[in-house]
């Protein structure tokens, strides 16, 4: 019984950094990534409005389906892939353990 999960951030091809995230604080993945020193602006503070916390899920457990709000925002971004998510909309729960992701490049 543990209250944390491990997610892996692919910082460069073949180079993954482990990030340990608590599951008992109701955090979003965006908050965890920001707190781990990643350069995420998250201008809107987590309301799926700015698209600056865009990540791509590369491997790992299946996540809950994105909401319409999130999909709408993702769809409007210049770059989007199959694994695109807004990290502010992904809750850190025990189901996230083993997730592999990368930060998507920011557009101006």
């Amino acid at each position, binding site marked *: 019984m543990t209250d944390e999960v491990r997610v892996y951030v692919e910082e460069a091809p073949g180079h993954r950094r482990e990030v340990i995230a608590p599951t008992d604080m109701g955090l979003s993945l965006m908050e965890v990534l920001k707190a781990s020193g990643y350069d995420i*602006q998250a201008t809107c503070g987590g*309301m799926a409005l*700015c698209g*600056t916390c865009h990540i791509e899920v590369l491997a790992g457990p299946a996540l809950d389906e994105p909401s319409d709000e999130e*999909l709408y925002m993702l769809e*409007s971004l*210049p*770059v*989007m892939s199959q694994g695109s998510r807004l990290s502010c909309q992904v809750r850190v729960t025990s189901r996230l353990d083993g997730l592999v992701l990368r930060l998507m490049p920011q557009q101006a």
Partner: protein
Amino acid sequence: MNSISTDICIIGAGPVGLFAVFEAGLLKLRCHVVDALPQVGGQLSEIYPKKPIYDIPGFPEVLAGDLVSNLMRQIEPFHPTFTLGERVERFAKLEDGSFQLFTTDGTEILCKAIAIAGGLGSFEPRKPAIENLENYESGKGVYYMVRDPETFRDKRLVIAGGGDSALDWTIFLADVAKEVTLVHRGTTFRGAADSAEKVKNLHDAGKVRLVLSSNVTHVHGPEQLEAVTITPNSGEPETLHVDSFIPLFGLTPKLGPIGEWGLELEDDAVKVNTVDYSTSEPGIYAIGDINTYPGKLKLILCGFHEAALMCQGAFKYINPDKKYVLKYTTVNGVPTL
């Protein structure tokens, strides 16, 4: 020209900007509030008026919209004035240390101090990452929004994007421009279903060209835009001669013109001194989500505190010779100006 004279000009009519009117009023300072949005309340009114907020002291739960109405009631005795639907563009500092501000619509505001309470900033078009794209801005062929459709009459256009505005402008400009090509990264559109249907029909009728599963990857031209390269997710890129390229990828909050004012910035926020939330320019203050300092928390309640301290600083800036005495509203009763 519309000209307004006040003590403090507050840029941003969100909760923090509104509460600053109250704190300024206690010090007998008059305020004028400017906001780019057509209504007061900032994000609270624009984005989440029906969402409950739980961390306003004294309110176990309050709807964002109600908090804004209450703030408006609270500042009413101080008779603030408003310019809504206009964005402050630039400022000039006058010899006596006061300021002159100008909005997009030509309103002039004369004030003794400025409080920037701009929140997320203003919503600006998102620009795709295409090399040299910025070289073709300002009338050289790349447009991030359609201000006047006549600009595109009888022109050859490429529009990029998959949202409502890309679909709507494709439909509208099909009748105005000489050629319209819509490039969309995906194969489906999340915009309004009937708009997507209309675009498909226009494509079938040969009125617009729809290029799916593709991106605009390069822009060309010595001075003026002459061509763009469209690269499909799989297959050979194609270069198309065009007069204009219109990427429509939605809006994202940006610092906006305030970012060009020469104030010290950090991570797209205005750096302040937490003694009085003053910026690097004497007489200009920044409060709420738009500022940054060690330990900054983007909370409404922190913005309220910042507003109170900011007004102290502004009072001293405006009245260097007067001594300020802290007054309690419990002692002095309903405050007025």
